């Protein structure tokens, strides 16, 4: 077990420099413990080098581990998220035998706190998704730490969806096969009724409705016809509409939320 710290400005700068240089060779793990490049947290938290089966697995692990930290201090703490990324970097962007890593955009590894790519950070978004949406985050986090899928981009990357518990729960109902515990076949595509279309739909209805103030069945009823095949797949032996209402309501209830749920209501 290792005590979690946060990279300070110098540590973040050096980590980014290494990333921008192509992240060749060994990750600069010395930053993790250097008193000049990192500093301790306000609470003692230990993490371990272990293998994560998915981003959801990582999110669950961190949600449990980081409970002692105040949310406000943690959610936007670039130094913390970059420290954790560096700690598991060989799993997030594994090196090949030649030492070359299949590196993606820097925002996936170093928090871009001011811009619109806040949703790309692998570690932070895995934690935040589980923290905010619980089990309903499974369908867009059911991917490896080294991958960024279109489902993830459309759900976690769109404020209109990710910021709404009702909308994320709706997506879970539509795209997650609870029986097989996998993403429904075809949900990763871009065709009618896909997460990409749901994202667009949510952008549109937020001009007219307040999804958080709506009952789950009201939101389902607003869905255009193109989404009907996803609703029907869930309970093929019952009529689509009542099944959709019940399932969605249960999904939200299980997560301790309601369509109008919020931390302050």
């Amino acid at each position, binding site marked *: 077990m290792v005590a979690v710290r946060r990279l300070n400005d110098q540590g973040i700068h050096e980590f980014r420099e290494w990333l921008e240089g192509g992240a060749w060779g060994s990750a600069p793990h010395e930053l993790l413990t250097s008193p000049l490049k990192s500093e301790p947290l306000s609470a003692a938290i230990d993490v371990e080098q272990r293998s994560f089966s998915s981003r959801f697995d990582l999110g669950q692990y961190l949600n449990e581990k980081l409970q002692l930290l105040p949310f406000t201090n943690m959610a936007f703490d670039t130094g913390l998220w970059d420290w954790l990324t560096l700690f598991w970097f060989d799993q997030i962007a594994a090196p090949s035998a030649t030492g070359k890593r299949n590196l993606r955009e820097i925002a996936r590894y170093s928090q871009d706190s001011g811009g619109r790519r806040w949703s790309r950070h692998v570690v932070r978004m895995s934690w935040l998704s589980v923290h905010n949406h619980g089990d309903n985050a499974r369908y867009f986090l059911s991917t490896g730490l080294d991958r960024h899928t279109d489902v993830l981009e459309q759900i976690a990357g769109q*404020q209109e969806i990710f910021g709404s518990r009702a909308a994320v729960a709706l997506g879970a109902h539509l795209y997650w096969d609870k029986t097989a515990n996998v993403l429904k076949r075809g949900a990763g595509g871009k065709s009618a009724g896909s997460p990409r279309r749901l994202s667009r739909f949510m952008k549109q209805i937020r001009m007219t409705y307040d999804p958080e103030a709506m009952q789950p069945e009201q939101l389902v009823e607003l869905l255009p016809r193109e989404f009907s095949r996803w609703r029907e797949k869930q309970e093929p032996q019952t009529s689509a509409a009542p099944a959709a209402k019940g399932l969605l309501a249960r999904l939200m209830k299980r997560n301790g939320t309601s369509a109008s749920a919020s931390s302050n209501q």
Partner: protein
Amino acid sequence: MRSRINSTGRKKIQRDRIAILPREDGRFVCDLDVANLGLPPTGRIVVEAHRQSITERFDFGTVADPAPLTALSLRQLDIEDVTFRVKIVDPESGRLLARADRLLPNGHDEGGRRELLTVKIKDIGPEPWKVEIDAAGEPVLILNDAIPAADSRIMSDALFQALILPAAFRQVLHLLWAENEQLEQDDDSPASRWLMFAQALTNREPPDWDASDDVVEWIDIACKAFAAQHPFMMAFKEAVNGGS
């Protein structure tokens, strides 16, 4: 920006009807005037504080009796970094009856006149500059902090401006086009304000936002008009001639 017509019947709550005052203990006070807006008395008022994907909601009673039903205390967000919105919602259908967006706590505002393009100085690695749309939808010009006196140069150095601003202007319009599907005439969003600015420059109505060729052409005209208003070419030529 497919449609710029507000066909929803939703009303806009003017900024001068809302005052949000931060307090030192992390709480805030919100003073709302929703009288005489033609709203049903049963309309539920919600005040939201948000940053990126994190939103905290506060039930603020009804149009007939506007008052906070819970303590106005932020648990997940820092008052220094949040933007607020106020919604009035039909309690039966969830339909929005009125809305005000992008509200800053009082004292954080720019005093009426608002910048179209915010400039920030940051470590952006090997790039001298770049344009981004931030989480609140505001275009931001980011200058590399390794450039000496970048913040004052962008305000006063004509060559510096000539090398950056025309391209940044074009990028902002393209980014806003890519990121905004819909805008409304009464929308006070950064995208809407840029649209109006570009419209004034071109003297032409913006095209249908789905007609890519027309949009690219319209943006090009706006960029030319913007450049024509500033001595970018003169500064550039002087610098080139001076250096030869």
